[in-house]
């Protein structure tokens, strides 16, 4: 029979010094989830310019893409999404009982892989700024 225990109030972030890898994974997953759902509403709002007409849509998207800060925010969004995808895969596997014994290592692997993918993607996300390549 499985064992259960009282984990205490996990939202008590004053306990952060006690947190281990699994707890940080849980916090990062929740934090990136909040950002992604916030972006989902923003994304649909921006794409809604399609309702006003083709010109409004194209002009809005291309104007946004010409702003440097928007490109930086997109790189932030990429890192958020990549971590959420990788850690989400890790969570699904743990739910299936796969890799439970090395869940801390797979969290660190998610972080490292996220960093590598984001760094490799920076040139693509900055391409075309200011009319350049």
């Amino acid at each position: 029979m499985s064992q259960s225990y009282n984990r205490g109030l996990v939202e008590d972030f004053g306990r952060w010094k006690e947190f281990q890898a699994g707890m940080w994974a849980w916090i990062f997953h929740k934090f990136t989830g909040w950002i992604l759902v916030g972006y989902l509403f923003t994304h649909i709002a921006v794409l809604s310019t399609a309702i006003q007409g083709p010109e409004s849509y194209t002009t809005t998207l291309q104007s946004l893409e010409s702003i440097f800060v928007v490109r930086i925010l997109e790189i932030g969004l990429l890192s958020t999404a990549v971590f959420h995808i990788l850690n989400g895969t890790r969570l699904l596997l743990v739910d299936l009982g796969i890799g439970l014994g090395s869940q801390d290592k797979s969290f660190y692997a998610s972080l490292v892989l996220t960093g590598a993918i984001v760094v490799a993607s920076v040139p693509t996300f900055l391409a075309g700024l200011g009319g350049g390549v």
Partner: protein
Amino acid sequence: MAAETSGAPTSFDRGGWGWLFQRITAAFLIVVLAFHFFLLHFYHHAYEVTFAGTNARMSDVGYFATMWLFLVTATFHGVNGIYNAMVNQGITGTQKRAAQGILGLAALLLVVQGTRVALHMNGFL
């Protein structure tokens, strides 16, 4: 040892439909979100997106269906995730019902607006 589980509020109801759908949508979103990023940032580039290009992609029935399912599953996964976080935070009773109502309405509005946008993109509206 079951008595030791009391104390912390939790949304962790292993037998619930919410638990199951959160994971089914997660599996779908892992693939489609990665595809969406890859297609519109690496294959095409976001700064080159035009209405004509969007219209061409959305005119493909398979792509349109995938994007609409993306909208619905992402909305459910995100809004249900917020609800789970609020339950974890300890809301009960009226607060819980208010959260269900407000988040449910927000999700419905997002799907309706997203569907309107999608139908304008493929030229149906």
